[in-house]
């Protein structure tokens, strides 16, 4: 079949690229089925996989084997930074750079500085909590091949999904979907470009 392209001199149709497979997405109807399926996927030896749900499932961390995050330690560092920052700010401004004598209070008055030190601690910890959480989750992640799936739109509604990435060593385009069907998936699709 000739196309317009073929008639142009010095130009040839590009070779069709083979579709890049990103992974397999399996849909489950409820919490029980996804929990048992998650245990099975983990015992089967898959490493690069995840469970997607509309709300955090109680017991899923143990099923997948999620290690506790280091976020609380980051928040602690943020809190200490806020504390020292608040203290340093007040010391520098009122007790060092432009010394301010107000009603006989000491230049560096720790009790009077406590409210602002406390607020700075809370502020920096909270900012660390939020931005740290999003950073560790690698969000914003605005392009995600999973979003190509129409079924996946219900992940934020009432359906549960298991995603096994093609990058996983045990992933195979034929056997992995069959395995997912066998452990109770209502539907399995291969996500590809």
């Amino acid at each position, binding site marked *: 079949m000739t196309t317009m392209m073929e008639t142009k001199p010095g130009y040839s149709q590009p070779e069709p690229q083979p579709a890049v497979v990103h992974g397999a997405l399996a849909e489950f109807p409820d919490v*029980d089925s996804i929990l048992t399926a998650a245990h099975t996927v983990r015992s089967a030896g898959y490493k690069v996989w995840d469970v997607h749900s509309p709300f955090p499932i109680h017991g899923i961390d143990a099923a*997948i084997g999620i290690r506790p995050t280091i976020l609380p330690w980051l928040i602690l560092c943020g809190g200490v930074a806020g504390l020292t920052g608040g203290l340093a700010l007040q010391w520098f401004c009122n007790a060092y750079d432009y010394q301010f004598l107000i009603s006989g209070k000491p230049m560096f008055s720790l009790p009077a500085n406590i409210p602002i030190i406390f*607020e700075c601690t809370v502020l920096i910890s*909270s900012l660390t909590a939020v931005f740290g959480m999003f950073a560790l989750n690698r969000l914003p992640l605005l392009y995600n091949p999973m979003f190509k799936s129409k079924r996946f739109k219900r992940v934020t509604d009432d359906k549960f999904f298991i995603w096994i990435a093609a990058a996983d060593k045990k992933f195979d385009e034929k056997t992995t979907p069959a395995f997912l069907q066998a452990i109770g998936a209502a539907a399995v699709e291969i996500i590809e470009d």
Partner: protein
Amino acid sequence: MATEVAQLFDAIARQHNADNTTDDPRFRAPLVVGGLDIAGVTRTVCGVSERSMPPAWYVALGISLCLLGMFGTCIGYLILTGVGVWGNNIPDAWGFGIVNFVFWVGIGHAGTLISAILYLFRQNWRTGINRMAEAMTIFAVMCAGVFPGIHVGRPWLAYYLFPIPNQMSLWPQFRSPLLWDVFAVGTYATVSLIFWYTGMVPDIATFRDRATSKIKQFVYGIFALGWNGSSRHWHRYERAYLILAALATPLVLSVHSVVSFDFAVSQVPGWHTTIFPPYFVAGAIYGGFAMVLCLVIPARELFGLKDVITKRHIDNMAKILLATSMMVGYSYLMEFFVAAYGNNKFERFTFFNRVFGPYWWGWCIMTFCNVVSPQIVWSKKLRSNMVILWIAAVFGNVGMWFERFEIIVTSLTRDFVPSSWHQFTPTWVDLCTLAGSFGLFGTMFCLFCKYLPTVAMAEVKTVLPQAHAHGGHLGPDAKRTDYRPDEHSDPDLDAPRFANR
């Protein structure tokens, strides 16, 4: 007997707008009624924005926009002409401006209490109302933040409040409560905003996935940050949420305490008292819950949220309203006792003046609205009546405004030396600015109801029976009788745990 109660709770869970306020210590009352399952919750909450808004919403938005216009005009007039357009004078240099500031900041605290403190106390019922309450907090703090900026004589120098290097090499006075306020309210606004937004990300993702137009898909998509419900993400999310709740909790208590220091650290009689921090915090929570009730009672009717914001939610909030009003009443009593018993004639006079002086009517309104009117909550019949409860909530807001009015105006207009005494009369600009601030609040809240998730869907879903697994024998048709979160392996639930009483 136990199975009968469980079956009763099941029947309640299936009825639309059921009365789930009954309590049995053996079973948790259903928090979502109307037979809603996980998809039902999504449908109910997303329906608020997806359906066309009820006419009452347009009326509310219209009125709010008019008041907002009035707000902007009054502020413009104030800045162009000067603080003299307000009723402020010497000695009463802090008039409506600061009354309004403390009023709005106080209202904000209920939202954070519901989100953070009730979360730490594992009160699952907070999931129905925490989104609206947090939104209320953000908008109340926005309204509050306007007043310190505009109440100064030269608002264009408001940046002096912040430690910004300037041409005079001057820094703010960090040992002053006015500066503590800047940091406290600033921190509170920031933390509330990020807490609210973080909570909304999964729900905005739901909006994104259900979006019908390209614009909605794009905008919700940006704000959802690509959230995809990954359990690894949820793990970090839950940790961050818990720690944010733990950080926001001391904020609820400390921010309004710092605001109270604006008064307590001064020497003015009626202000210089150590009761102020707990007094203000209790009052703030009372006023805040009054405002939450004012908003939630009509919202659940108008937007069809009765199955998610149930009668139990309203009942619990009413009880907190009563509890905090009792704390406020106790504080009033203690203030009077200390003034009468202590040997400070100025303090004694101040309280005599509050009841019998020129602003006695404000004191009467304050006492009636804050101490007397919430007592109706003792009666189950009265607190179940939504109209009566709503009126009591409105009284709560009015009473809390008058409390700040009494504190500020009576103490300042009648301080130590009678030659300094001078009456305070609000001008029309004062009154219009106050009304206008409700316009800002109302506009933001109406827009929130239209464009953002009004209920924390992901959190509400976690309190449904279907959210918990039971070794494989619970399916999507799970009934309440099958859901026993506190039971480990007790086969015979009918047997009384404490026999032979």
